[in-house]
């Protein structure tokens, strides 16, 4: 009536061994979710921090360049035939965006973009008679003349 089978010693039940995999799978999934959440958080913060660092560095460089702008402004000529002579004795190029005339505040006597390289001079003809100042792209205002 019986049936003779051969089984390995230690496995007398004839049934497959049960494996405890469910708990491990749950743990792996939970850990994966946690890792994804943490990584996304850290990535977002690092990205924002990187962007801020770049902006702060750019601002620092602008301020440093602003401090290196050294211009002398001389006005030659009289009346309507005056010329502003700009001399850059600094180490950075200066970009002139306007020549301003002091008159009840300030009025523009010249507008444009003029680059004055280091150790070079540039002339700008203006047709006004008030005290003149050169405004640079970095916000420095250099006065000259009377």
């Amino acid at each position, binding site marked *: 009536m*019986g049936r003779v*089978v*051969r089984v390995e010693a230690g496995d*007398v039940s004839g049934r497959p061994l049960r494996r405890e995999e469910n708990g491990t799978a749950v743990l792996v999934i939970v850990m994966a979710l946690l890792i994804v*959440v943490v990584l996304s958080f850290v990535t977002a913060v690092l990205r924002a921090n990187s962007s801020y660092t770049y902006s702060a560095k750019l601002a620092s460089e602008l301020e440093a360049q602003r401090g290196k702008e050294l211009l002398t402004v001389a006005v030659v000529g009289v009346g309507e035939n005056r010329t502003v002579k700009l001399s850059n004795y600094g180490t950075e190029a200066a970009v002139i965006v306007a020549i301003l005339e002091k008159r009840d505040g300030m009025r*523009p006597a010249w*507008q444009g973009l003029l680059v004055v390289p280091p150790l070079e001079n540039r002339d700008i003809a203006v047709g006004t008679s008030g005290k003149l100042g050169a405004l640079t*792209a970095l916000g420095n205002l250099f006065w000259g003349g009377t």
Partner: protein
Amino acid sequence: MKPMTIELFPVQCPKCDHVWHTRSTCDLITCSGCGRKISREQALRYYAVSHARGKTPKRGRGRLRRDQRGVSEALSAIMILVIIGAAAFGYYEITRGTTESQQAGLIDMLAASEHRSAQLLTLVYQAENRAAGTLKAYVYNYGTEDAELVRTFIDNAATQPRHIRDGLSGDAITDSIVEPKQLVEMTFDLPQGEVNYLTLETRWGAWYVWRLGT
């Protein structure tokens, strides 16, 4: 290791029709399908009768349970996934406010700092006109981002400029935004005293304080 020989007897549970092989010689055996204690003799006889008829065992409530065994394993796996998903979703929903507020707080602070560092205002000139009772301040933005002026103070008192104009073109500026590389002329009522302080606050919380007067 040398295999050893064990005699196994086919038995069938009369409760659930589960068929298995047992090596037990005890009077009572435990069904590996439903876990019930049943008589070994009864299980042997039930198996013999069922298979002697050459038919499948009669259908009963145990049959359903046996046939659904494979389904229940897949179902349990799906249930585990559903529970994990629900738990993860619940955890996300519960902690979303805190996590997002922390993350948003950090990122907002960094973004505001970034905006502030890109707004670089400087006072390039000031002019008093006592006859007209006005004070003109010329502010230049040498940064890389628009600076929106939200509040203006003269000597710690909030004040509104009479008007804000472009310093070069003379056009009125109505939105109080100082663009990059733009010179603006702000006209105020002439304040009292010899020395005054002009304070500007931009949208991203940058503060600029300048000493006016000689």
